[in-house]
């Protein structure tokens, strides 16, 4: 079975590796999962 996650998963964070979740959403509002879908995102070149 394996008790220990891989080094890459441990390095990147066990929340994302094991649950595909993050405890805190600290990204700017345009990239946040809480962004209202109708709000346009920033223009990119």
């Amino acid at each position, binding site marked *: *079975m*394996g*008790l*220990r*996650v*891989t*080094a*890459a998963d*441990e*390095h*990147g*964070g*066990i*929340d*994302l590796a*094991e*649950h595909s*979740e*993050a*405890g*805190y959403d600290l990204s700017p509002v345009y990239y946040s999962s809480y962004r209202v879908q109708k709000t346009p995102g920033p223009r990119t070149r």
Partner: protein
Amino acid sequence: MAIMEISAGDTAWVLVSAALVLLMTPGLAFFYGGMVRAKGVLNMMMMSFVTLGTVSVIWVLYGYSLAFGDSWNGLIGNPLQFAGLQGLMSPDAAVFTIPSLVFVAFQAAFAIIAVALISGAVADRMSFGGWTAFTILWATLVYFPAAHWVFAFDGAAAENGGWIANDIKALDFAGGTAIHINAGAAGLALALVLGRRLGFGTKPMRPHNMTLVMLGAGLLWFGWFGFNAGSALGAGTWAGLAWVNTLVAPAAAILGWLAVEKFRDGHPTSLGAASGVVAGLVAVTPAAGSVSPVGAIAIGILAGIGCAYAVGLKYKLGYDDSLDVVGVHLVGGMIGTLAIGLFADPETPAAVAGLFYGGGLDQMWRQAVGAFAVAAFSFVVTYGISLALGQDHGSARHCCR
């Protein structure tokens, strides 16, 4: 077994206590969750929550029966006697003055928190699937037998009980041996098999949210009143004594831990205060019903000072007990369990005299045998379980700086 008439007051108190003890596991999730880095907080909390799931189910299916069924040579209960809680739904089924099902509920919450405590030793690196399997195996092979040894008294839930409670007659009012020493020794074994976190000892791994830690410590303290005072299994003097001791021991331990920090580091910290609360609670758990409040203060100070120094051992000895399960639960449990041999007061309902009350060393050796037997059993079996489950997921361990 129906021994006495069921008391409505006792039943109500133990039902409330069971809910208080159950709240300790989400409280532990906050306490541990705040202490890890931000990238691991959810998994840390999930380890407690999945334990609520696994242990509750197996407790009903066969766990209660293994822990409190009729004993086989004092070592383990009959797994079939109460399997699925059969025979316990009758109005006549009672443990002392409470219905058997209320006792089942109260002890279920104990089993859950005992397993969840171990998760702090392996933060940030144990796979969730591995942990889930571990909770079932560890509860079955380690906790249920140890709970039988310590908590199963002859004639209470079944005719014959465990060897530590009935033959050695070690005192463990609410689980200093069966829960805290047990979980602490298991945490050490599991941490040794799993190995250290990447960067342990070289990179700072500070708690990411101390407010969560303080919230968790508060919830733990609140729930611990059910843990200790509920263990009287009645609403009377014994519960009152345990309640007062559960107030003053952690209070004294806060002061002891902060004094060490001020003396050693120059700053009393919030992490020290929260850890002091837990250290004092752990130490007074076995002693809550057998020492006076003054004795509880002494035990709290000893635990606060002792555990504050003990948590530094992992850096000197090189094992990664991430959130100090060994330093607080194993060491604190040992301090409290052995201190009964010193501070047990014959005026308490336990009516046992320790060394300082003219009882000599008679109770001390009983406490030592119980404590070290459970610690050794837990360490060895947990080490075996961990090896059987497999240390590694099989991927390269050297991919990341």
